[in-house]
């Protein structure tokens, strides 16, 4: 007899932690962004563009969006797991959410790097 402990698929803790780490990243970015907005207010196009094309800010903005998309994935997946019982429909919706979020990720990079 092999001794086995049934503890699930193991993604629970990782996602639980990721949900919180990404949240903290977004809190920090929100504070930095609001501080920058206040400092440069009122803002014209030049300053607005400079804010996001500044090297560190561009990377931070991308980090914010990637955190947002991962955070959104875990949250929306939890909502779907709670309310959509038929497996087929739930999987279909989950695939739609993943495709949307990956698409948003590509769009974000294209916005930030073409600005």
């Amino acid at each position, binding site marked *: 007899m092999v001794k086995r402990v049934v503890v699930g698929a193991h993604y629970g803790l990782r996602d639980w932690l990721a949900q919180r780490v990404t949240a903290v990243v977004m*809190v920090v970015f929100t504070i930095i962004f609001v501080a920058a907005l206040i400092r440069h207010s009122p803002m*014209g196009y030049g300053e607005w563009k400079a804010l996001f094309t500044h090297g560190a800010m561009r990377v931070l903005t991308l980090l914010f969006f990637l955190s947002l998309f991962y955070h*959104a994935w875990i*949250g*929306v997946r939890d*909502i779907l797991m709670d309310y959509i019982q038929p497996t087929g429909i739930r999987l279909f919706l989950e695939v739609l959410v993943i495709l949307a979020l990956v698409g*948003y990720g590509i*769009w974000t990079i294209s*916005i930030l790097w073409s600005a």
Partner: protein
Amino acid sequence: MAQVSMTKKRPKHLDLMKIRLPLPGIVSILHRVSGAALFLIGIPFLLAVMNCSLANQDGFDRWKASIGNPLVKVILIGFLWAYLHHFFAGLRYLALDLHKGIDLPTARLTSKLVLIASIALTLILGAWLW
């Protein structure tokens, strides 16, 4: 004894009109509702605004002019509330995860603070935006 508690009739109804959520429950369901709204409409809206306003001077001006539209203002204020509520409720959950404020009186107080802070800040920023 176990049998008694198993068969004990407990009030059970899933009628949304009859369910009376305690304050922390209201914060919780609003956290979910605001999260869903931010995902469904907030993210594409935010990216569309970034795309338009960063592309060129013309796009920036168009976006700035569209803020003047009262309908756009109302939508923006709606998302402002969703973001702020999700933000403050999220901070509360982070504190709860660290076992801060888990006793009932504190948990009720902080959920009240989350509701008040997000609505108050939305009203202040909304008034300033208007």
